[in-house]
């Protein structure tokens, strides 16, 4: 599938190839670089036209301002709490369910599987109105609960169950039968024989739940009013001047700061992240 089918001007072809790759990549990375550049400009420089590419003076104090304008550390913590809770809840719900659907298969399990699958196609906007009323009735307004419970139960668990089911399906049933002959209980067979074998898919489930919960925007926008309880995505939209106009440099600094940990985690856990997202997109 390589493009090197020609022969004559190979160097020219190769350069053109790299040029094309670079231009396309810039469309994806350019905005990120522009964000970092903007985050280091003074408010006067950021409004200059034509804009400067590299800030004339690096204004690191923009990053300090983030924390003066908002309890950003706290908000960051909220995001992490939500993320961790969604992950744990999703794993606890999806691993047993996926195992049951793949290996235990009680009566009517395909029907249950289809019901659960519908969650993958359920847009959050379609259910946000009743869930908002639901949350008010439960006294969950202005708490992190709806971001954790509704999201885990409605969105991440269906996807995760699908992934876990696929993972358990690939394992031969004989593993379990052998264990049963040796006298292991059903629960022990699941936990000690099968669970250790699906660790890569478990990583995928964690990656996908983290990714989804970290990205939530509509939900916190609707459920949370208190600045101290906001999660990062909504908080980022609050860096405005007194007239409601965006405070571009501080906003870009906040955005850069919010992106940084994810990029760092990605650099170290690339393999799992990529495998996770690919597993999320198994062929249907």
């Amino acid at each position, binding site marked *: *599938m390589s493009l090197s089918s020609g022969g004559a001007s190979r160097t020219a072809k190769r350069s053109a*190839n790299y040029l*094309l790759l670079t231009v*396309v*990549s810039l*469309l*994806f*990375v350019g*905005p*990120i670089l*522009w964000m970092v550049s903007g985050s280091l400009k003074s408010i006067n420089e950021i409004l200059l*036209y034509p*804009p400067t590419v590299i800030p004339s003076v690096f204004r690191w104090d923009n990053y300090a301002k983030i924390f003066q304008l908002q309890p950003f550390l706290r908000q960051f913590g909220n995001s992490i709490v939500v993320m961790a809770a969604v992950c744990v809840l999703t794993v606890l719900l999806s691993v*047993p*369910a996926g195992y*049951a659907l793949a290996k*235990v298969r*009680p009566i009517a399990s395909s029907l*249950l599987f289809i*019901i*659960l699958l*519908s*969650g993958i*196609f*359920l*847009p959050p*906007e*379609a*259910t*946000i*109105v*009743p869930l908002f*009323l*639901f949350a008010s009735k439960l006294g969950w307004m202005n708490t992190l609960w709806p971001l954790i*419970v509704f999201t885990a139960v*409605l969105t991440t*668990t269906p996807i995760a169950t699908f992934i876990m089911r*696929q993972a358990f399906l*690939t394992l031969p*049933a004989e593993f379990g039968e052998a264990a049963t002959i040796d006298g292991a209980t*059903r629960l022990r067979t699941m936990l000690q024989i099968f669970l250790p074998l699906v660790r890569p*898919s478990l990583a995928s489930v964690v990656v996908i739940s983290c990714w989804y919960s970290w*990205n939530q925007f509509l939900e916190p926008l609707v459920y949370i009013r208190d600045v101290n309880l906001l999660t990062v*995505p909504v908080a980022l*939209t609050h860096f405005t001047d007194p007239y409601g106009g*965006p405070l571009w440099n501080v*906003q*870009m600094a906040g*955005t850069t700061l919010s*992106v940084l940990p994810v*990029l760092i985690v990605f650099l170290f856990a*690339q*393999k799992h992240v*990529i495998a996770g*997202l*690919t*597993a999320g*997109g*198994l*062929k249907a």
Partner: protein
Amino acid sequence: MHSMNTTTGEVATASQGMRSPRRRGGRGRSPRDAGRNLFGYTLLAPGILGFVAVGGTALVWVFWLSLHSINALSQKQTFVGLDNYARILHDPDMRTIFPNTALFVLVLSVLGTVVAVALAVMLNQKIPGINIFRSAIFIPALVTMVAWALVWHFIVQPKGALDAAFDIFGLGPYPWLRGGPLTLVIFAVIQMTKNVGVNVIIILAALQAVPNELIEAARIDGAGAWSRFRHVVVPQISPTILMVFMLMVTGSFKVFEIVLLLTDGGPGIESSVLSFAIYQQAFELNDIGYASALAVILFVAVLALTGIIWQLRKRFVYHESE
């Protein structure tokens, strides 16, 4: 980025799982089966009950709400039958909002899939440094949608980076965010560049799983590069393309952050879409009943569209085993 290749194995094993034979039949009612059923339901109960309790309640409730006129302030709820749906039909705003939504669904799913396949093919070269380019395209997928929208807002603002870029060629300034097709194009670009990386990675994994012998055999038979791609590679990766396409169809209904943050649906409702209209009606205009009717329409649209695509899949997707 030496790890991209590992994804191939992951997908390959997982896809075998799909085809693995079902458990041998038999619906005996021996005590052993009773125990199995009990065990199975115990494992399934928390997930299924939670999902049905929250999701089922929400769906029934949203439909029920859509049949009412609700005053959010006085909490008064009056049954109005299908009036809210009739209102949708006569609402002049909807004559902009529905076409906008349909446009995004069409463009983001069809063009989005084509772009994802093209990028995946482009990145499926074995040349030095290719992993840098693969990571580059994936990076926006790591950023939250809000961050990506804010950065793009910064770029497309008047006298921003995009204006400056066009200015170099003596073009512009263009009214990027002042409504009309141009704003919709900008939204589509922002939405597409954000998530296409994930799909590229998925398709790339599928491309790498295409047996080289097949391509070689076609080459020996005299098939040109395009013909090899069209008749050998595409059928092989068609199940993956279908899946990416379906994910993009559902995803394309969720153009929300961009609309809210860049134009607030404006000017007027010119750049609004269905998901944003639901939010606006419910939480800015407090018209819960009307918002619920729109939400029901959204749900039915997603369900119908994915259902239709699923029914049509046999025409487009090549299955070795069937």
